[in-house]
């Protein structure tokens, strides 16, 4: 690492000298090449600014009309043109957190299995399979959700939960199949590969010397893994947040199974709505400027939330990457 940074430093000074030399020599090719690539880099820069600006200006009407009320009121009524995003925010957060609660232990289990336990011949196909999961389009998950998952929930799972755990508010009401539970489950399946593959990489980045130290102290394999997990906790937290960001922004699969009603209900059997699914469902139907503006404001909220989560996540994974440089 030290060697690498030295190299960087060297080439930086070299670049400057070289630049001066080429201008003196009248070699403009390099300058044009640099400016050309710089132009595209600037384009990306402008693009992100533009995205932010477009969403802000698009939602100005709604922001002026509703202010902060937009985020905390729960009436979503396109006919009367009253828009409160609370049910959508609630649905987004609840479905995402539920999904996380399901897939975090599973994903960590898979990551531990892949990096610490699995015999070599099993590891590759298993990694490949979990990565395949990540490659399936969201709309196909949704299709599967509608025709396989939802009927299964309606006929078997929800009646079962209702019968045995009906005293809890989460499992009350009619088993529709379509609803929060279906959305959470399908999201859980979708974010599993993110959690498992990033966590696996992070566990692997813990040097073997840590494992040896623990083994040599007389730790059982699980105790060794606990130490490796402790070493990786910030990275795993980062992976979890990346997955959360993905779940919050996920649209198609959720839209197809959540039931799409702006409702805040403790029961997981009830239909709900998420910010992304409102946009997907209603955007082409938006009949007035205010309606459209409210939908764009939803996109803005989604944008801001996911950016914050993603940045925090990247920071953590990045910190994890550097950590072993300080261990001598």
């Amino acid at each position, binding site marked *: 690492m030290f060697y690498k940074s030295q190299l960087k430093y060297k080439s930086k000074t070299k670049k400057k000298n070289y630049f001066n030399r080429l201008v003196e020599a009248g070699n403009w090719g390099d300058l044009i090449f640099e400016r050309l690539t710089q132009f595209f880099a600037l384009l990306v820069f402008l693009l992100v600014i533009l995205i932010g600006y477009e969403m802000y200006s698009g939602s100005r009407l709604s922001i002026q009309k509703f202010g902060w009320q937009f985020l905390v009121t729960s009436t979503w009524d396109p006919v009367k043109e009253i828009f409160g995003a609370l049910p959508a925010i609630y649905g987004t957060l609840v479905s995402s957190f539920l999904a996380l609660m399901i897939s975090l232990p599973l994903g960590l289990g898979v990551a531990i299995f892949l990096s610490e336990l699995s015999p070599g011949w099993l590891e590759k196909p298993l990694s490949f399979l979990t990565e395949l999961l990540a490659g399936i389009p969201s709309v196909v998950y949704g299709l599967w959700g509608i025709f396989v998952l939802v009927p299964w929930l309606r006929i078997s799972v929800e009646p079962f939960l209702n019968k045995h755990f009906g005293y809890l508010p989460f499992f009350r009401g009619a088993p529709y199949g379509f609803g929060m539970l279906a959305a959470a489950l399908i999201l859980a399946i979708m974010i599993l590969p993110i959690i498992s593959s990033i966590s696996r990489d992070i566990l692997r980045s813990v040097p073997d010397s840590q494992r*040896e*130290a623990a083994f040599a102290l*007389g730790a059982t394999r699980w105790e060794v893994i606990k130490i490796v997990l402790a070493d990786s906790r910030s990275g795993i937290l980062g992976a979890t947040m990346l997955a959360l960001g993905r779940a919050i922004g996920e649209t198609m699969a959720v839209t197809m199974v959540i039931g799409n009603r702006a409702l805040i209900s403790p029961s997981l059997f009830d239909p709900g709505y998420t910010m992304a699914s409102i946009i997907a469902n209603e955007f082409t139907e938006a009949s007035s400027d205010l309606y459209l503006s409210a939908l764009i404001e939803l996109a803005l909220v989604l944008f801001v939330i996911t950016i914050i989560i993603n940045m925090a996540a990247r920071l953590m994974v990045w910190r994890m990457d550097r950590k072993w440089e300080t261990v001598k």
Partner: protein
Amino acid sequence: MHNTINTINTINTIQPELTSKVIKEKVKKNIVVDVKNLAAYFGKTKVLKEINLPVPRNKILAIIGPSGCGKSTFLRCINRMHEVVGGTMTGEILFDGKHIMKYDPVQLRRKIGMVFQKPNPFPTMSIFNNVVAGLRLNGVRNKKKLSVIVEQSLKQVALWDEVKDSLQDSGINISGGQQQRLCIARAIAVQPEVILMDEPASALDPISTAKIEELLYELKKNYTIVIVTHNMQQAARVSDLTAFLYMGELIEFDKTSKIFTNPALKQTEDYISGRFG
């Protein structure tokens, strides 16, 4: 090769009056780790060939030999770390008279500590928790007891004065030499009988190395130490006995003074005088 002869020689040199059964028993008791006909493999590759080597109690045994000759593998067979990386072994290693395969590996490793080439403290644990990591695994929870052991162990490795005010700091914010002493403290905190050290000073500066060497002398009173070293002078300075390994074979095993002044074999002499390796 000459292993068996050497072994008998050594026992004779340590206890020359060895004749009666009673004394033989006594000697046996004095042998903490008795390696008999040990062969070790990585897959089908044989990296240790029929090693016979008794390790007497409260002595320092140095293992020397060119890199790749199997020194680390030998150490890792003793505490069954060899099997952790997928290696296999045949032959016998007796620890306190019992075959190591009859121990639970977890328990065996508690009694045979290990220190590695690169210091490897646990970065998420404080210095305090690093020292007691092994004890905690064994279910010791008593705060007072833990504190006493931390102080004892850190004093034994001469680190106490340097870190006593920062016990709650992370174990990686200290120098490399301090980290290595911390790792030694961690190993002795569980009061093992034997400590295996795999080139413990090779990643350290000369001053830290000197400190570790001093420490070995102190530790000898309570522990048996098997130390792998690349450094001939170090072996000569710190050890009582020296074993010379070459290409997986034990070439010569004797008192350190004998090996370094008057080795029985030409090969050993060549290696020590730096003619190869």
